[in-house]
């Protein structure tokens, strides 16, 4: 009889998050205190990050059979934890303005972070599915968190039904692959694929069904229909979380899975992902052109951005992984920043999501308008911002792998995308008369402003001097 010998140190980041969420539950049971639970959440997220920096940065190990903790996983875990920290810093003021019960939100935030962490270090279908479900189930409640808004219920139900359906697809795909291979570990699947000359039909169907599940989570075309509605209905900090942590975890998993099974060697898989990528870029950008709701514009732009990211993913190799890491950092920074601006401008009745809420913003709140402008320019990929370097990196990795069609699409779409980002910026500088009467009256909290400034500073710093971040990524990936 053999018993597992899991070293508790190996899984400490997860343990931190689990302990923090349990402490959060206990603190609610004793006394509800928004400040306390906010401090607990932020403190534990920071603790995980410090632990990763100090202890885990050059450790590599596997926790058989479920997890692999390597440089790639550690780097993205750190990124996810810091993004959650930024989201929680932005959430405090946002939920403080609203009268509803706020404390449960932080438990869900911690658990969703845990789920995403498990996703990025999993090397087994069981841990993949558990991580994904922890993430999704926490998100259902987070999306519908504000009970007084009718729209949030709609978004929650929509996300619940579609995510459950896509989980079913994913599960069926995994079952088919397991039935063929007889193992749920990524490495065994890769070995099996190496031993057969052509793909059996069950594996084929399995990969197809898994693509549906993964594509849904990433919001890629044609599984993107939930994105605008959920982005619009969810509270702004939760939207930031969905856009960054939830999608990022899945991207990393996809990269890891494809690395293990050498997905780039199968023309059919590459072709289908290329079609998905091109369709995502065009659909996202064209649909964003016609929107007048800022949250929806950002939702469609995130569809397009995931399409861009697929270029580096399809390029594969070490350069592709580097590009994915770099792009994720920039994408997280800009998205959390952009939704942070929406959160800071929202008042207790609704979120600042109409384009008209931003009319003349530069004259009312010059600091926030500057931050938002910087974030939008980075999303558009203007030089001197992080977004430019990110796109440059994507294109470099794509050229290395001869993906010329995809690169051409990326370039064309960057130009299309410029239009709607510039449109928002133009509205902010536009001084229309009478705009003060319809303006929302947000209460600005210093903590939000500081978070936004830090995000902007980082984003511009990485745009001007990316070498530091690139070196750091290379250190981790080795």
């Amino acid at each position, binding site marked *: *009889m*053999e*018993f*597992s010998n*899991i070293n508790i140190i190996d*899984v400490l980041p*997860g343990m931190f998050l*689990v302990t923090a*969420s349990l402490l959060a*539950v206990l603190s609610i049971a004793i006394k509800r205190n928004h400040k306390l639970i906010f401090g607990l959440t932020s403190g534990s997220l920071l603790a995980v990050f410090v632990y990763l920096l100090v202890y885990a940065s050059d450790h590599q190990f596997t*926790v*058989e*059979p*479920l*997890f692999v903790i390597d440089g790639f996983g550690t780097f993205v875990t750190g990124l996810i934890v810091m993004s959650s920290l930024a989201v929680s810093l932005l959430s405090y003021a946002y939920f403080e303005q609203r009268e509803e*019960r706020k404390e*449960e939100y932080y*438990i*869900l935030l911690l*658990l*969703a972070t*845990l*789920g995403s962490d*498990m996703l990025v270090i999993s090397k087994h279908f*069981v*841990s993949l599915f*558990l*991580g994904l*479900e*922890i993430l999704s*189930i*926490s998100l*259902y*409640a*987070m999306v*519908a*968190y504000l*009970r007084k808004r009718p729209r949030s219920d709609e978004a*929650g139900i929509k996300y619940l039904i579609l995510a459950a359906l896509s989980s079913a697809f994913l599960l069926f795909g995994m079952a088919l692959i397991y039935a063929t291979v007889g193992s749920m570990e990524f490495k065994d699947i890769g070995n099996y694929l190496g031993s057969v000359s052509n793909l059996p039909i069950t594996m084929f169907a399995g990969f197809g069904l898994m693509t549906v599940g993964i594509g849904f989570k990433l919001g890629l075309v044609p599984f993107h229909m939930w994105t605008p509605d959920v982005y619009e209905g969810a509270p702004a900090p939760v939207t930031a979380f969905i856009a960054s942590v939830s999608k990022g975890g899945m991207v990393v998993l996809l990269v890891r899975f494809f690395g293990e099974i050498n997905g780039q060697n199968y023309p059919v898989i590459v072709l289908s992902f290329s079609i998905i990528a091109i369709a995502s870029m065009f659909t996202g950008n064209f649909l964003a052109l016609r929107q007048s709701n800022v949250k929806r514009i950002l939702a469609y732009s995130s569809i397009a951005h995931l399409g861009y990211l697929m270029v580096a993913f399809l390029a594969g190799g070490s350069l592709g992984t580097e590009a994915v890491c770099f792009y994720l950092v920039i994408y997280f920074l800009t998205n959390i920043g952009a939704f942070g601006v929406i959160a800071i401008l929202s008042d207790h009745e609704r979120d600042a999501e109409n384009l008209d809420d931003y009319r003349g913003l530069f004259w009312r709140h010059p600091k926030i308008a500057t931050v938002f402008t910087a974030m939008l320019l980075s999303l558009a990929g203007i030089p001197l911002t992080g977004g430019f370097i990110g796109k440059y990196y994507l294109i470099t990795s794509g050229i290395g792998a001869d993906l010329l069609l995809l690169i051409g699409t990326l370039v064309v779409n960057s130009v299309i995308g410029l239009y709607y980002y510039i449109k928002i910026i133009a509205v902010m500088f536009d001084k229309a008369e009478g705009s003060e009467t319809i303006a929302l009256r947000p209460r600005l909290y210093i903590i939000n402003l500081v978070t936004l400034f830090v995000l902007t500073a980082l984003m511009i710093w990485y745009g001007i001097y990316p070498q530091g971040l690139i070196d750091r990524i290379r250190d981790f990936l080795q």
Partner: protein
Amino acid sequence: MQVTFYIAAGVAILSTIMVITRFNIIHALLYLVVSFMALAVVFYIMGAPFAAALEVIVYAGAIVVLIIFVIMMLNLKSEAVAQEKKWLTPEVYVGPAILCIILLAELIYTIGVGNTVGITGQIVDVKEVGQSLYGEYILGVELSGMLLMSGIVGAYHLGRQKKKVVHRFLEKPEE
């Protein structure tokens, strides 16, 4: 043994199709119980008696509890009894009953033959399940705990009763 597997699998598919095509939720629930029991038989034939038992206890049991809840909520007034009679006419329960009888016959046959090895040639017993759950998959079990916790916290928050329970038509000012 192969034939018994296909019969049970057929029953499972048939009853699941009936679940999603029924209009009345009670009728759908009846077929859902049959579907779970068919799956349990499939598990049993495949050589996983523990999974079969869990399937019956957890899933089929939960559905029975649901039905009891519905009956309790009917509150047993006269019109409720009439409603119940309308729901449970013979043409409603004869379908699930026939499918159940097929499954029962199969189970008796399998036990009677005495071939408990299953079609895969090996039996996964309780001890093995326990060893793998609390051995190599212990982190998975702990993560499932976290999964349930997020579900409960979310359900608690979303299911909380609002303080003001006024119908939306009553909120309109008098004209």
